[in-house]
């Protein structure tokens, strides 16, 4: 069983992320974040570094004033590591 650390904006997103991972047979490890999107983006580089060694799943919302999803991911996440999966809810 693969364990995946998740990073989410808040409790509602945590439920969503858990269901998504469980749906594909993955186990949720430690839950990080839970303090809004700005907080996640500030630490995203650190989570990305840790994703060199273990799988991470980061889920954030795309706010109205943001560019499109692809652009946003490229902007937020430089040098995406092998274990990092950043997904943006539109």
């Amino acid at each position, binding site marked *: 069983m693969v364990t995946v*650390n998740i990073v989410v904006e808040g*409790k509602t997103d*945590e*439920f969503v992320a*858990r269901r998504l991972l469980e749906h594909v047979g993955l186990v949720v*490890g*430690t*839950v*990080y974040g839970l303090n809004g999107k700005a907080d996640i983006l500030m*630490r995203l*580089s*650190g*989570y*990305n*570094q*840790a994703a*060199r*060694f*273990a799988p991470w799943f980061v889920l954030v919302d795309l706010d109205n004033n943001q560019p499109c999803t692809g652009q946003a991911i490229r902007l937020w996440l430089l040098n995406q590591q092998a274990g990092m999966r950043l997904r943006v809810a539109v």
Partner: protein
Amino acid sequence: MRFSRLYLANWRNFAHVDVALQERVFLIGANATGKSNLLDAFRFLRDIVRIGGGFEKAILDRGGVSSLCSFFAHDKPDIVIDVHIANGKQEVWHYFLAITQDTQHRPLLKAEKVWRSGRLLLDRPDAQDALDERLLRQTHLEQINSNREFREIADFFNSITYYHIVPQLVREPERSVGRTSDPYGSDFIEQIANLPKRTQKARLRRIQAVLRTAIPQLAELRITKDRTRVPHLLGKFSDHSSEGLWHTEVDFSDGTMRLIGLLWALLDGTGPLLLEEPELSLHQEVVRQIPSIMWSLQKEHARQILVSTHSYDLLRNEGIGADEVLILRSTPHGTEVKLGAEIDTVRHLLEAGLTVAEAALPHTRPQGAETLS
């Protein structure tokens, strides 16, 4: 000297603990995971050797062997406390204590061993114990006619202090009746007042110096006695428009009282200091500075500090390393204790520049916390 390793078996919440300890140790974990119980293992060692204490009393004060024995213990009901003690980087002492009980539930030593630099100095039960089982109701550590070769351990255990100042107890008018060295602070002001004047003033000056940032309006601290010879802590509070007003401890805020108590604890003694949640009632900016304050005062006395905390702000301090954090997590087999450095995710996040608060605190979130509200 300091504790360099702790091994516990069947102690309260813990079926098994084996951790290395640094000069500063931060214990983090959800409620009821056993942070206080872990600290209590050190208090227990102190209670064995302190005047008026002893092995049997230390156990009975905690409700007896059955109360102390981990709920998760099955086939190995003996309680074990095993500590390594270092002087600087060099490990010097090793003390091993195994506890059981007799058929009448009285505490008994199952084993007591002492090593110095790897050489075994004491190995009980011995021939004397075999002749008289009642000898197993006392450790050799607590007996001055038996501990000559390793009295340094007894002195070290006796130097352990535990503080958890409760401001309401400090302010209570009948506070110190019948109490001495109360870790909760009921005789806190008496303890200050009973010090030699020079030491007392020097310490209060040190506290004032640190408080200058946290409570700038507090200009001076001093001890005075009222007509009934009861000592009081006086604080001179000033603002820009006045020369200042003197207030007693009754008027101090909880935060002021706790901060004074914390600083006093850091200055009082040279042995290991056990602190519980020093962040209570304090402003987050003050809390952030606690590790640095601890570090600066600790360096003067080469003193070990073990502190339990839930505080994100305290653990945001960038000077805290992965090997200084003990993470307590509940499991079906008792609370598991791991160094932050032993958990890959924590270590990797710290290497990536996150703080202990960001990297380790999420690991202490209670299971099912997402459903708490």
